[in-house]
């Protein structure tokens, strides 16, 4: 029993690695692309519209599949399994974050932009110092949903044979023919997501110092 728990927990390593790597890249990229969708020229906007549609519109599983098997065939290169997983998760989650931050930035009052401009601030300065910090506060709930979804989505890496919580659990389920083992996985997920829920409600409270 103990060894089973340890074996499943070993998969949490993958889960957490993908979770953090994805967020570190996808959040800033999402913000950048959101700005591109709002302030970019027609071409940039068009490209980003197609990007968010394609990436949100197809299953992440297929995207992981495509990055790991398709790209090497098309480009004749060889991709590391982990690297492929990171790339697929980052491009997928960036699409979701782009849409979320776009809604957040659009919700900031025009007056904030005008006041910044009237003070001589450049557009990048306005975004970085005035608009984005306020937008982040407003999009906390949907971002929280994405964090929770990401924790669970990481298990999709099993399609390119990377072991994670869910795959290790399935292995044990079939070795021992014991579906009850899934309960262990469920508890691990609940602990991880509880951490996220807790963090977000803390952050929400911390940011409530204004408004």
């Amino acid at each position, binding site marked *: 029993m103990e060894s089973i728990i340890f074996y499943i927990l*070993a998969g949490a390593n993958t889960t957490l690695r993908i979770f953090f790597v994805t967020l570190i890249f996808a959040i800033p990229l999402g913000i950048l692309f959101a700005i591109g969708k709002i302030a970019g020229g027609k071409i940039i906007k068009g490209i980003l519209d197609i990007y968010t549609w394609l990436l949100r519109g197809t299953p992440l599983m297929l995207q992981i599949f495509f990055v790991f*098997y398709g790209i090497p065939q098309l480009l004749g290169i060889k991709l590391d399994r982990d690297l492929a997983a990171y790339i697929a998760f980052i491009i997928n989650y960036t699409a979701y974050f782009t849409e979320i931050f776009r809604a957040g930035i659009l919700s900031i009052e025009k007056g904030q932009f005008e006041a910044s401009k009237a003070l001589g601030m450049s557009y990048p300065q306005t975004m970085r110092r005035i608009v984005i910090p306020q937008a982040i506060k407003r999009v906390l709930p949907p971002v929280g949903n994405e964090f929770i979804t990401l924790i669970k989505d990481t298990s999709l890496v099993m399609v390119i044979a990377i072991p994670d919580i869910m795959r290790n659990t399935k*292995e044990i*389920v*079939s070795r021992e023919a014991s*579906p009850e083992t899934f309960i262990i996985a469920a508890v691990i997920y609940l602990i991880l997501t509880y951490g996220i829920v807790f963090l977000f409600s803390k952050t929400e409270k911390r940011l409530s110092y204004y408004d």
Partner: protein
Amino acid sequence: GTAKEPVAEDTSLADIQAKGVFILGLDDAFPPMGFRGESGEIEGFDIDLANEVAKRMGVKVQLQPIDWTAKEMEINNKNIDVIWSGLTITPEREAALTFSQPYLGNKQVIVVLEASTIDEKSDLAGKKVGVQLDSSGQAAVEKETAILDSFGEFLKFDTYTTALLDLKNGTIDAVVGDEILIKYMMTKDPGTFKVASDNFGDELYGVGFRKADISFAAEVNKQFNAMIADGKAAEISTKWFGEDIFYKPAN
């Protein structure tokens, strides 16, 4: 088809020997062929067999668990060098891969609850029958169209575990699958299931290679025959199945 004479530009064997290792792709949730033991290490009949072949070739084996759906891509992208995981030899697969000679015979058996009266294929008429998606069990059933059409419902499961769970819960009436795997699973839940006397035919397991890797496949065949000759094959079979069921070519 099975290994023929090597063609001139086929350097596959030389490449493996130069590398000193071949990468073995497997479904590591397929006891007793290849699975994670209590220690967390992958073990099984296929693993012992591959290690013995490698030892005789003077190279090492590197195990790479893969997702079964992706096995063709894994091998064609050269992420792995062989698919060695209780791979049933079928005409479709023979079109895409080069196979070693068969090394194990297998049956597609009908599993039912201990109390069930199903014993013949014809008893399945009007019943709910489950298989594992993409398994050779599914292929075997689909070949016998008349019987397939007589089923009440034909269900394809992610894994045999869930299929057997359904059987136990009474939501389906029978499961068709690899004798080797099913028998292993029945030991985990003794007294619940039994195997019907009729079956969906025999089939053979072989090692899959890239289409062009003929010299490598021929080398593995050579080692198989040597192991049959010196009794090593029988020893490994006995370790996992309690008897020598290693497949021996007719000639």
